């Protein structure tokens, strides 16, 4: 594989892979927050 095809392939897959993985993490974190919300009693003190 030539250096340029190596570099460009790694850049395309690397950048999109990093964005995709972090995008998936965002969704999973939001889901986890919905499944395990902060208890009402603690929401009051957190908002103060």
């Amino acid at each position, binding site marked *: 594989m030539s250096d340029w095809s190596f570099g460009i392939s790694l850049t395309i897959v*690397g950048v999109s892979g990093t964005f995709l*993985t972090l995008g998936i993490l*965002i969704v*999973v*974190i939001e889901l986890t*927050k919905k499944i395990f919300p902060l208890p009402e009693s603690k929401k009051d003190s957190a908002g103060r």
Partner: protein
Amino acid sequence: MLESIIAGISGLGAGTMYLATKGLPNIIMLFVGGVLLYLAIKREIEPLLLLPIGFGCVLVNVPLSDLMEQGGMLRFFYDVGIITEIFPLLIFVGIGAMTDFGPLLENPKILLFGAAGQLGIFCTLLLALALGFPQLDAVCIGIIGACDGPTAIYVTSQYAPHLLGPVSVAAYSYMSLVPIIQPPIMKALTTEKERTTRMAITKESVSKNTRILFPIIVTIATGLIAPKGLPLMGTIMLGNLMKESGVVARLTGASENEIANIVTLFLGLAIGGTMEGHTFLKSETLLIFGLGFLAISLDTVAGVFFGKIMYRLTGGKINPLIGAAGISAYPMAARVVQAQGQRYDKKNFLLMHAMGANTGGQIGSVMAAAVMLSVLKGMGLI
């Protein structure tokens, strides 16, 4: 007997003779070691790393000491901790135990800044290839753009161990220069209006269950996508799980103090040990330092540009400056963003948002390295 005495005396002067005859590279590196010690002691630039690196550099450049030969002290640290990749991983456990991912969990979307802040890795990889570096060397040089010392050491020790000295010194030096490198770029790429954008204060908080599940979920999810990077992500998340669970205070304390301190000392000495004059002083070392500087600058450029895109997409609700915090230099990059924000509007408080982006940068840098390693494995190159 006289011959024995003369032979003995010549043994005592052998080091000095070596320096005088063929020791110019060692003399230069003794000076470089001195500069690193000066930066650590007088300027307090990353002293925990630069002091042992500087002293390791001094040790290995005293001729005929054989410290990096088989059986030598520095060689032992190198073989035990760097060849095996254990030192950077143990440091990651400590980093995980020290990091509060709370700001990131409160506003997870900010994690994307941690991806944008890694673009410098890939741009530098292409530049290194253009300059003629072999493919795996170029990968390791690009990794300087992760702004993450342990990640750079982990990847370089596996795939380009001959570059370990320059890559790790460049990574740690430029990380410490973030407050100097970033502000001019941030100013050049943003308008006055963008810089003075105030961001709403997030009042949402997260439950303890979410905080505990976060490291477990991240480990499994990222491990499934990029298994070659699991040691990196797994150790940082192990440290964070210990911290958030609250049930192993002794282990958490040991990870962020005793273990991290001892490993940092041995790691620094071992890296310094790779800086022997005859092997370190090459034109490629200077190129690596130049490319490392570019890598971190390009990270900032990409982060701020991504911030500008988010500024437009959100109708001016996100200050583009926080894009500069999407790198792994934690918490330094977040503090830089806060300082720059207040430079243009004294009542602008960007710190919590920048902290979120900065912890996102920590995950992003590890993730970028993990993705790269898994892609290289897929290509059959490692």
